[in-house]
């Protein structure tokens, strides 16, 4: 009897300790993750610019965003463009590199270190560096191209929407392909070697092995990588703020940078702060992201079952 009592007491102490240990982090989580979500939900219904009395306007902010704000939709299209193009270019690149580096290429550990290197630096600083490299008059890229005789006049890389978006795309790929390569590498290393040996006996060659063994077995990893990459690009902020800041004429804005400016302004455009409207846009974006995630997870379930 006494033993049982002691055990109960012991468990109770353990449980109290458990709750006490987690409590600080839980409070932090409530404050810095849950509270901001609730804050955004509430102020989306108000016209509020930080000073003066907030005015309750119901769903007016949402109506404005959905019907009258072309710039928001342009920003959304830009973001989708970046996300999709990134997937199309970056993942095959990362997979190929992982594949080569995984095979016994000479100096493969050197290549791993180098390809991961860009991922180490701050995206904001990377943005700054590439702005200098791509600058129209004294940029290294233009100098290089004309040195090779490929162009006669300097290209103004940030002059048109199409051009700047693609420069951003290139830089964004530069800054993250190493991480995806490492993810793929990890997936490749988990594939049992016996499978390759068996298929070799059955007469499968390099390419066949790649398509019938490597790709299917990588599918579960691929599912995670695609989702992370999609969501990551949808949240692109620092890079765009630093590189184009929406120039020319707000045409290269991404969703997050567009919303960001309603809260903080940035650079020279600080005149349009509107917390209520920014909140409404945040909710719309969060819902779109949520729907995308759910659709993707449902449709890619097959990948996990392989």
């Amino acid at each position, binding site marked *: 009897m006494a033993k049982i009592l002691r055990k109960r007491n012991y468990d109770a102490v*353990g449980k109290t300790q458990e709750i006490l240990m*987690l409590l600080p982090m839980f409070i932090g989580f409530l404050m*810095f993750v849950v509270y901001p979500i609730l804050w955004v939900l509430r102020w989306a219904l108000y016209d509020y610019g930080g000073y003066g009395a907030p005015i309750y306007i119901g769903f007016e902010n949402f109506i404005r965003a959905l019907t009258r704000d072309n710039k928001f939709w342009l920003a959304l299209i830009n973001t989708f463009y970046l996300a999709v193009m990134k997937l199309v270019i970056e993942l095959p690149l990362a997979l190929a590199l992982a594949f080569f580096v995984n095979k016994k290429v000479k100096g493969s550990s050197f290549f791993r270190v*180098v390809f991961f290197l860009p991922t180490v630096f701050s995206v904001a600083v990377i943005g700054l560096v590439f702005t200098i490299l791509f600058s129209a008059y004294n940029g*290294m890229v233009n100098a290089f191209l004309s040195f090779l005789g490929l162009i006669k006049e300097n290209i103004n890389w940030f002059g048109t929407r199409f051009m700047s978006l693609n420069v951003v795309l290139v830089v964004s790929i530069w800054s993250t392909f190493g991480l995806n390569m490492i993810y793929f590498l990890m997936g490749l290393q988990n594939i049992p070697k016996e499978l390759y040996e068996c298929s070799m006996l059955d007469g499968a060659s390099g390419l066949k092995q790649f398509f019938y063994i490597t790709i299917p077995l990588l599918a579960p*990893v691929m599912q995670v990588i695609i989702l992370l990459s999609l969501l990551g690009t949808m949240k692109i902020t620092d890079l765009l703020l630093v590189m184009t800041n929406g120039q020319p004429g707000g045409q290269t804005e991404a969703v997050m940078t567009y919303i*960001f400016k309603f809260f903080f302004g940035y650079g020279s455009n600080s005149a349009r702060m509107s917390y209520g409207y920014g909140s409404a846009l945040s909710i719309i974006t969060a819902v779109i992201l949520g729907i995308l995630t759910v659709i993707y997870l449902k449709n890619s379930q097959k990948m996990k079952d392989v």
Partner: protein
Amino acid sequence: MEKKQMKISIRPARICIYVFLILMTFICLFPILYIVLDSFKTNSEIMVGGVGLLPKVWHFENYSKAWKLANFSRYTYNSLYMSLFIVLGSIATATVEGYIFSRGTTKFSKIVYGMVLASLFISIGAMSLYPQLGLAKMLKLNGTLWGVIVIHVFGMNATQAFLATSFINQIPKELDEAARIDGCSFARIFSSIIFPITKPLIATIGLISFRDAWSDYLLPYVFTISKPARMPLVVGVVNLKTTGIAASSWDIALAGISISIIPMLVVYLFLNRFFIDGLTEGAVKG
């Protein structure tokens, strides 16, 4: 005969692979080389442009100018200060989270785990910055880097928590039971058994949080908008561009950028194995 043929058919492919890998190496290294080499040029040499990578004369004084005039000593100090506390704090909170999510038995910890998981899918990223700033104002943490530190440490970084959980899940439960029989309490098991044997996890979390802290831009930017003396390096460097100073003095800007990337470069080159291993573990298992 057959063997010889195979060798011939494989060689071109091999060469292609090497050309491709070397090209990618060049693309990866060029911008970094460019920054470091150009940071020794004079401003006019940079402004003229051209393809010459090496400076005609090495101007080391760009660094002392950046260090003193553009106040990079202050920025570097701020960055180090902020990163140190974020790293220590993240290690402490992430290991505790991992331990509790892995070993905890109360409903409370299960509910919290579910909430953190759910938050990954409704994360609102840059949009939560404003309310976070408001909270920091209420706590009188605005205008200092402590707001950034507290958010980083206590904001429950889901990735780090999951990484720690999956790591601690792999530690055999028999260890806990043995300690329990010896009279260790729940908290004691953590401090004297689990925490000491999570060294690889601690190294990984330390590195990841160092990288996040050192390269973070938006959060410290928002917290130090009106307080240049409190800016960390990354914010200070980018600020050079937006204030228009960099347009006229790229030498200083590039020296500043070098100061901001060289510590990361050194840390990465020395510890790259931890770095890469840690990230892959978090991604695939977490």
